[in-house]
Every structure is written in structure tokens, then in C-alpha cells.
């Protein structure tokens, strides 16, 4: 009797201890998740806080008189005349209407600098397209100069220094009050390539470059990775050679990405003579990098297909090929796709190997195809982040947000595909 009651006491005491341990363990888990979520939140909050202004552009709307005499332009269809003409004059003229008391060439220059240097080319392009407009008055929206844009958006922010003279600041304040200078959604960001001037720089060419590169990567790495995984899991004999291959695939997954860049430079550009800076080479290099990840995750997915399904199919007389194609691969597909998309997301964020194969170039035009010089999102962000102009800081942050949006949508796609394919079974 006493024996059994003491045993109950011991169990009870140990129970307390066990519960305490359990509670502590659960707390560790919650703490870990909290830390992860908090860092993610801080990261996002910081990026969005710093970068949301990158999605805003500052414009100056002016009534410009396209007067041939002030521009020294008689025939807008003549390229020589266009080259010599002063397209800045109408802009200065229009600004002067707002500030009639401004005199002197120094003041004129300062006034002109409220509008970005691409303002003049906007007028030139307009006249080139529509020569009839010469001599008329047009309402045109110009991009404000980078310094004006920074002043308007970040006047009270200590991290930005105001690079406008007192006089210019007064003008800008006045124009903002009049509604001449406005901020709006930055459509330039999504419709143009890189530029020397932050106000005129866009991320479209990098987005297209990334898409083209990812297409090449996907087209190569997914079939190769899945085929290799299926062969290794289902058909390969178990011997030293396959062991060796297996070890090396795992090693390959751990190779620093810059090595792949060097390999791409030596093999694809040096040996095969492919052009530099093109999405094809970038895609090939990133495919090399992604294949091991896809092989490893696909093999894990194939391994997790229950052997009973294999036996069931074999038991009815399905051939090896039919077992693999009808049952194993479809069942493993969600896992394979998830692995591939995670590998692709990794490749999307990769910079180092692309620097080596020349995808770090200054790309103004949106690439037309796989053999057209291009850059990719992370490289574009890197380029902007290392630029001197203040306007590029917020562009880099905006670029990071675009990149993160890409990644999140790819991951969402992975989850969606997984759910969808799993439900069918």
C-alpha cells in the first residue's frame, strides 16, 4: 500500500517537472518565432518607410510657348537644326512667367535647374513627332530635377541634405503652393530603363531582364533537375559511381555562387563565345546553380511517395516507366515544384555570378530578347545603392520592394501550386 502511494507521489513530482519542461520548451518555440517575425516586420517597415517615396515622382507642369525664334529652330524635321536648337528656352520662359522679377544669367540657370535635364529632350521629341506644334503654346508635364524632388519629398528629413539655394527653395515652395509642382505615382519607374538622372530612372529593363533570365533558368534547370532526380532515385544502380555522383551533387549545392559566375565566364563566354551581359548566359549560370537544389528537393519528394503506391502499380503489371510516370512523378510533383520555385527565388536574388558575366552594365533600353544586353533586379539595386545622387537611395529601396514582391509572389505561386496539385489526389 505504502509502496504504491509513494510511487504515485514520485510520478506526480516527475509530472510537475515534465510539465515545466514542456512549458519552457513551448516558450522557446514562441520566442524563436517572435524573433523571426519581429525581424521580418522591422525589415519590411524600414524598407517601406524609406522606399515608399521611390514610388512617387515630382512633376512641374508648365505652359510652354514653342516659339521658333527663342529656340533658334525653324524646321523641326531637320536633324541638324534640332541638334543646334535651345529647347531649354521655352521652359525657362514658362518658369519666368511665374517669377517675372528674376534677372541675370546665373538666376536663369538656377531657375532652369528646377526642371530635370530631360525636360529639353521632352520638348525636342514632341516637336520631332509633331512639327506642326512649332509656334503654339502647350501644357507639358516635366519631371522635376532630382534636387527639387528630394527637397519636396524630404524637406524635414535629416538624412537628406537639401542641395537647393535659398532662392530656389523659395521658388519651389511657391510653385508647390500654386500647384505647379506636384507629386504623383511614379510611372517612370515601371516604364523606363536606368538613367543617369534619378528622376528619369526606371526599373522596367531590370524587371524584363530578370524575367528573361529566369525563363532561361527555369527552362533548363527544371527538366534537368527533375530528370536527374528521377533517374537517380528510380533507375540508377546502387554502386560507387552513383554514390560519387550523389556526394558531388550535394557538394555542388554548397558551392559559392561566385564560382558559378567564373565558370560561366570561362565556359559560356570564353569557350562557347556567347555574348556578354545577355540573359541567356545569365540564365545558364543561374541554372547551373539551381540544378543541385532542384535535384535534392525532387529526390526528397520522390522518396516521400509511399512504397505501397509503387507496389500497387507494380502488382497490376505496370512497367517501371509507367510506375514512375503515372504514379511517382505526379505524387512527387508538388514537392518538386516547391523545391524548384524556392531554387528559382534564390536565383532571382543572386548578384555575384551575374557581375562576372557582365550583367552589371548600364542598361537604358528594355531588352528585346534573350541575346540583348540586360541587367537584373538585384544588380540594378546594387548599382543604384552605390550611386552618389540622393534620388537613387529611394529608388534602390523601391527596387528592393519590387524584388521582394517578385519573391513573395513566386513563393505564393509555389504554395498555390502545391495546394492545387495536392487537392487533385
Amino acid at each position, binding site marked *: 500500500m505504502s509502496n504504491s502511494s509513494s510511487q504515485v507521489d514520485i510520478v506526480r513530482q516527475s509530472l510537475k517537472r515534465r510539465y515545466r519542461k514542456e512549458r519552457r520548451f513551448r516558450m522557446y518555440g514562441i520566442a524563436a518565432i517572435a524573433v523571426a517575425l519581429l525581424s521580418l516586420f522591422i525589415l519590411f517597415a524600414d524598407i517601406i518607410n524609406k522606399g515608399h517615396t521611390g514610388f512617387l515622382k515630382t512633376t512641374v507642369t508648365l505652359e510652354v510657348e514653342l516659339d521658333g525664334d527663342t529656340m533658334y529652330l525653324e524646321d523641326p524635321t531637320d536633324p541638324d537644326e534640332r541638334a543646334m536648337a535651345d529647347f531649354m528656352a521655352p521652359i525657362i520662359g514658362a518658369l519666368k512667367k511665374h517669377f517675372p522679377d528674376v534677372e541675370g544669367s546665373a538666376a536663369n540657370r538656377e531657375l532652369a535647374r528646377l526642371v530635370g535635364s530631360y525636360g529639353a529632350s521632352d520638348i525636342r521629341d514632341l516637336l520631332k513627332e509633331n512639327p506642326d506644334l512649332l509656334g503654339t503654346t502647350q501644357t507639358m508635364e516635366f519631371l522635376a530635377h532630382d534636387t527639387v524632388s528630394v527637397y519636396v519629398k524630404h524637406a524635414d528629413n535629416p538624412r537628406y541634405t537639401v542641395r537647393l539655394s535659398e532662392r530656389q527653395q523659395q521658388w519651389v515652395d511657391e510653385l508647390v503652393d500654386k500647384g505647379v509642382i506636384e507629386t504623383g505615382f511614379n510611372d517612370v519607374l515601371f516604364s523606363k530603363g536606368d538613367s543617369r538622372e534619378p528622376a528619369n530612372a526606371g526599373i522596367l529593363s531590370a524587371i524584363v531582364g530578370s524575367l528573361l533570365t529566369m525563363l532561361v533558368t527555369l527552362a533548363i534547370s527544371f527538366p534537368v533537375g527533375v530528370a536527374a532526380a528521377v533517374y537517380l532515385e528510380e533507375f540508377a544502380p*546502387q554502386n560507387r559511381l552513383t554514390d560519387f555522383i550523389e556526394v558531388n551533387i550535394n557538394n555542388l549545392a554548397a558551392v559559392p555562387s561566385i564560382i558559378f559566375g567564373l565558370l560561366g565566364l570561362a565556359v559560356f563566354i570564353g569557350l562557347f563565345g556567347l555574348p556578354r551581359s545577355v540573359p541567356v548566359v545569365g540564365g545558364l549560370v543561374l541554372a547551373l546553380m539551381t540544378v543541385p537544389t532542384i535535384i535534392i528537393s525532387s529526390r526528397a519528394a520522390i522518396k516521400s511517395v*509511399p512504397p*505501397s*503506391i*509503387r*507496389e*500497387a*502499380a*507494380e*502488382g*497490376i*503489371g*505496370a*512497367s517501371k516507366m*509507367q510506375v514512375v510516370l*503515372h*504514379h511517382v512523378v505526379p*505524387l512527387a510533383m508538388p514537392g518538386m515544384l516547391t523545391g524548384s520555385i524556392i531554387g528559382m527565388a534564390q536565383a532571382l536574388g543572386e548578384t555575384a555570378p551575374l557581375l562576372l558575366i557582365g550583367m552589371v552594365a548600364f542598361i537604358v533600353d528594355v531588352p528585346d530578347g534573350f541575346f540583348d544586353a540586360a541587367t537584373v533586379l538585384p544588380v540594378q539595386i546594387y548599382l543604384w545603392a552605390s550611386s552618389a545622387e540622393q534620388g537613387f537611395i529611394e529608388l534602390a529601396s523601391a527596387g528592393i520592394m519590387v524584388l521582394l514582391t517578385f519573391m513573395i509572389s513566386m513563393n505564393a505561386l509555389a504554395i498555390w501550386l502545391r495546394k492545387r496539385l495536392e487537392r487533385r*489526389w
Partner: protein
Amino acid sequence: MNSMNSTITGEAGVPEDTIIPVRDPVEEKRQETVEIEEGKTVGTPFSEDAKFALRNVEVSYGDTRAIRNISLDIARNEVIAFIGPSGCGKSTFLRCLNRMNDSIDSCRVKGSLMLDGENIYDPRRDVVELRARVGMVFQKPNPFPKSIYENVAYGPRIHGLANRKSDLDEIVEHSLRKAGLWDEVKDRLDATATGMSGGQQQRLCIARAIAVSPEVILMDEPCSALDPIATAKVEELIAEMSESYTIVIVTHSMQQAARVSHRTAYFHLGHLVEVNETNKVFTAPEHELTESYITGRFG
């Protein structure tokens, strides 16, 4: 000679004069090394009208001999039950009959295994054709994670047994009827098979095996994962099927063997100890080991 004998010599250190109760496993192992003679089976292992003629079959996994020199005939349209304690090799032996052991690299099969006079293990023999003739139902219900219809239609489709949709529909209905499942599922053929109960799943697996019209159906403990009601249904099914198929069933339940089979084969540590009419095995076993097993002294 092999690992098993060496373990027995190792355990034989028990003093001879100690009185050991009958249930002591050491004593039992000592007994059987004395009593089993390799390759010798008591009872009636051979048959006039043999579907399977198996002679001197040896199966080994690497260095372990799982089946030791077994000779047995399985008659046409009979139900034969394989019984025996766990690890006695009955499942291994069953799986030789449609070469399901092929996928295990270390597995070696020796001896002569004939199905209707043709060697099962002939290297030129197509295993796909063999498995179309010798179907299998597994221990755990393993329907494909597809619709009920697709499960049954899969076999006929890969073998090209039906050219038209209507033919396929007919095969599916016929197979499901034979498996006693038609009335339960005819309104939801498109529902996924994994949503059915365990007993229904197992009967679906039987329907799937029947759908390719095999001559033999191998059943590896088909009821071990089922409740008594589902078990009764499957047993009923076996009785019905015995009219048109040869059925080999491995079971741990002696009552089941007694209920469904015509002949019963008792396996022990890789040996085929006794084969007899089921009645005889359960009422008057010839071999001492069979008697100990069926009376529940071990196993």
C-alpha cells in the same frame, strides 16, 4: 552455415538438466533444429492439376536464407493459405510467385518456379505479363490517390484491355460488382478512393486486381488492417472468387485460414513444414511443430 544456426549454438549454453517450460523460446528453437529436416514437407504438397509447380525454391537476402528448399504445387482454382509465425518466410515465398521481390536488390531466388509449365524466373520472361496473370492484394489497402473509377480502370488501361470508354465502363462495373462494392460506390465513382473506409479500400484493391482478369490472385494478409465486419466481407468474396481464380492467401489468423482455404501450408523459419487439407491441418496435424503452432503454444 548461416546466421541462424550460429545464434542457436550461442543460446545452447542452457544446461541440459534445467527444466524449461514449454513456452520458453530457447527450448522451442532447440527443438526445431532437431526436428526440421531441410526440404522435407509432410502431408500432400503435390497436386495432379498444378497451376504453380515450385521445386527446390531457395530465397536469400544477402547472406540470410529466407526460404530453404521448398517444393510445393498450387492446384488450379484452389484456395491455399500460408500460415506460420512472423518471419517464417511466407510473405517472401508469396512474393516470388509474381516476382514482387525483383525490386529488392539483395534478393536472390533459386530453384524452379513454373506457372503453367513456364518458368517464372526466366530472364527473357516479361514481368509485366506475369503480373497481369498473377495479381496481388496487399496487407494494407493501397488504393491510388485517384478516383474510384480510375483505380479500377488503371490496370485495363495500361494493358490495353479496353479500346472504348464503354468497354472500360463495363470492366469497372463488373470488377466492382465482383468485389461486392458496386452498390456502395456506383453513385460516387468520381470520388477519391482515399476517402473510403479501410474495408471498402481493400475491396477496391481486390476489384483493381480482378479488373485485369488475372488467373491467380495473391493476397498478403488482406484482412490484417480490417475490422471483423470488413474481414467477413472480404472472406465471403474470397469464397466466391475461388470458383474462377486460384487464390494464395497469407494470413496470421488461423480461423481465417480454416474458413476460406482448401489447403493450408505451414511455414516455419524458412521451411515448409506441412501442407495438408485445411480440415486435416486444424484437426489432426501430422507435424509436431504445426500442432504447437495451431494450438497456440507459440507464434
